[in-house]
């Protein structure tokens, strides 16, 4: 399910206390929410905390949602604000070493995929990480990503292209050395 196509009625139903709508929203957006938080915070534990808080907040703030056809952007803005609050209050544990082990931590899934993610988190800068992750996990358009990140669309586009180049280089470099 592509998160970009979240139905905004889910949020409207959620505002009326509809648990089934909450479940559906969660299922469609969990990995986008988690991935976006991870791209900002670079830390699994913090990303998990933010993911939890974001869904709780989304449920309680659903009454404030104004239907404008952008339910995912609304949800991701909640995620962004929670992450920024964490960064600002200094409560982010920058346990970078975790990423060195990302590949080994859990055995499931493809090692190659994890290496790509690891490279994305380590080689890209703050904005590039968010752009690349949002692009791959949500299917949102560059313009929509630009809105969420409050950046000009042109910047998002050029950063995206630059990031891909960096990533390709990093991954191929790694491949050679193995």
């Amino acid at each position, binding site marked *: 399910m592509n998160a970009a196509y979240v139905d905004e009625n889910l949020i409207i139903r959620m505002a009326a206390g509809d648990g089934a709508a909450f479940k559906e929203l969660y299922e469609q957006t969990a990995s986008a929410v988690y991935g976006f938080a*991870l791209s900002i915070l670079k830390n699994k534990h913090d990303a998990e905390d933010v993911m939890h808080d974001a869904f709780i907040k989304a449920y309680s703030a659903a009454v404030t949602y104004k239907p404008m056809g952008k339910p995912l952007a609304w949800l991701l803005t909640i995620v962004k604000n929670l992450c920024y609050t964490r960064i600002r209050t200094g409560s982010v544990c920058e346990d970078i070493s975790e990423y060195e082990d990302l590949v080994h931590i859990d055995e499931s899934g493809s090692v190659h995929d994890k290496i790509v993610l690891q490279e994305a988190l380590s080689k890209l800068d703050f904005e590039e990480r968010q752009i690349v992750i949002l692009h791959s*996990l949500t299917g949102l358009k560059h313009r929509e990503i630009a809105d969420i990140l409050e950046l000009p669309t042109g910047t998002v586009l050029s950063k995206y292209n630059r990031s891909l180049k960096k990533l*390709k280089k990093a991954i191929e470099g790694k491949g050679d050395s193995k």
Partner: protein
Amino acid sequence: MTESKINESLKAAVEEMTPNMLDALMSELDITDEPKELMHDTIAQDSAADKNWKPVSGRLGAGWMKAVISCAAVLVLVVGGLSVYNLNKTAFALVSLDVNPGIEISIDSNERVISATPVNDEAKDVLSDMDLKGSDINVATNAIVGSMLTHGYLTDLSNSILVSVSAQDEAAGTELEKKLSENLNAYLEDSQITAAILGQYVNEDEALKSFAETNGISIGKAWLIKNLLNTGSTKMTEADLLKLSTQELILLGQKRGVANNTSYGDAESGKYIGSEKAISIALEKAGVKKASAQNLHYEFDAEKGVLIYEVSFRAGDYEYDYDINAIDGSIVSYEKEYEGPVAGAGGGTSNGSSGSGTSNGSSGGGNAYYDDDDDDWDDRYDDDDDWDDRYDDDDDDDDDDDDDDD
């Protein structure tokens, strides 16, 4: 590796890592995925069970109804807890609620609403369909705040409410103010809304009234402005403060500690960078390490209609003063003044070399791609490039860097 392969890998890796917390969330929110057909009936019964609840719902738009439904449990609790208190109160009072919409509510001695008047156009919007006459002031307050939420006047970034009470009997008025602020805070907390509340008792007089009327602001906002001018800032002027939004005034009120108020939450939590960030920006621009900055302090202030953190510290023979824009972290002005060797605190000769501070640029470190914008957020990420250097040299076997010295 192609673009789409990279995207697929990222997606797969994140999906793999995403924790499953659906059940935990649903139990925390106390919801199930059963369809909730009975929602409306349940609320109606709960509400009707409490005499204080005025069923105004018949006149409400659909949007407001949503707020009522999701907050109804809270409303009922608040009202239930208050019914004893209502029995004999003689205070006739004026309550004003300011977000940016401003609403003035007059109440009778039983704390029932006589009338609710919008102070500005936004407030008309908020009050549009509500009939609050005769309802308990706490119910009315919560309903108005609920409507501000649905109308988008209260958001994560604009999260502050000013609660002002004036009454014939000051003691009763002060008590009412504290109680209203407390209840409103509980209501917002229970609704999981992060908000800041500043409550104040207002000594209303003719001068204040005409000041409020001339400037088209509520009595409460007028009082707060007058109070802020008494907090000893050398920068703020009345004209400056009139330019600020209610949120900004509340933040100033909280930070500068205006007299006699009740304060909940933190207006800073929304869109402001926070004092720590402001301090680190100032230190960085001065090229001074936190450890070597003496007498480091900050004050929240307003200058020319802009909220600032005024950060001051001493390092070496110099005294530094930075005014940092509280929203975007830009430097509004700065001064570096020669103070002479540290001997007696305070004094010192001031050879005023104003504006001559050295600026270190946004980041050192030497990693080019962190430098292309001066986004404050990624400054903290600029430091940690070192660790990924290990991925740059291609000779990593599984043992890391212990094999250097043989």
